[in-house]
């Protein structure tokens, strides 16, 4: 019975201030990159399409790196686990390249 069960005396450790400070710093970096994305969206004209797209992709990868590496702690996991997650993502990159190329070809055929 849950209500009759004694909750064992749990030893609560003090907050790890260095770690918490680091987490807030990562949060600050993520916020800054998002603000930078807005700066690019409104200051680089749409005529520079490729420059815009590649800056966005680069900043997205930076953000993803911080979220997966620090928040999800993958950077500190064993190398085998790290690469088991990262290597399959190569297929996704290839799929992206192949399908966008395919889309451009469909566009050209339709012309």
């Amino acid at each position, binding site marked *: 019975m849950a209500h009759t069960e004694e909750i064992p005396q749990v030893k609560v450790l003090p907050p790890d201030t260095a770690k918490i400070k680091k987490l807030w710093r990562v949060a600050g970096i993520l916020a800054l990159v*998002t603000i930078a994305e807005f700066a690019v969206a409104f200051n680089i004209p749409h005529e520079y399409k490729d420059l815009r797209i590649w800056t966005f992709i680069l900043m997205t990868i930076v953000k993803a790196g911080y979220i997966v590496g620090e928040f999800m702690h993958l950077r500190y*996991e064993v190398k085998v686990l790290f690469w088991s997650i990262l290597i399959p993502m190569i*297929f996704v990159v290839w799929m992206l390249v192949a399908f966008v190329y395919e889309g451009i070809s*469909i566009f050209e055929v339709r012309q």
Partner: protein
Amino acid sequence: MANPAQVTVPAPGRSVWDGGVSPMNASYGKLMMWFFLLSDAFTFSALLITYGLVRSAHPAYTGKVEDFVFSQQYWPIPEKVFDAVPFFHGLEAPLVFVGLMTFILIMSSVTMVLAVEAGHRMDRKAVEKWMLWTILGGITFLSCQAWEWTHFIIGTEEGSLLQDGTRIFGANLRINQYGPPDFAAFFFFITGFHGFHVFSGVLLNFLVYYNTVTGVYDRRGHYEMVEKVGLYWHFVDLVWVFVFTFFYLV
């Protein structure tokens, strides 16, 4: 659980992969969460890449950005579609509301990671506090998304004039005032699928909060469940980072 001192030294003639030890140094639950998230990443990638395929197969808008009008002939500029903010009717504020949603989700990811940190220290009160903030962030995000969907479905006052002279307003799975119908279909599917993940995440977060309050994890002796659900919650945030870039910015 075997004694860590024993598991680091495998028996002679046996490899570390022959069982009995954890070669990836992560618990079964955490490992399976990682592999589930990898498969989920494939699903989301497939959706976003299909968006890229269909978008590049459509003509792009080539005129000046200032003169942009909605048309079925070309793919719309996303910032011209998502430029409304609640309570500021008629104000053109491209991407401001989506930016706010992004910020809310990133902040809820931060509070989640603080809950995980508190869980490592067995600090029940702190876990409760940060889990509540995380749940609040998730619900706020979902509410924002509900508003955005409503706005997208109802449409703008002017609507969009079709070639046969009819005027259409808003978007559903058949018509779309903002551009080709595919654009609306992808909006509903991608943000809808992500929104459903956020919704499931809020439910899981609530479950973790409930178990924390009732002392389940104190009795269990560890707060690993916070970590596992935390992984899922960060993943939801991660997907939004990509949706934000590839659906709203590019």
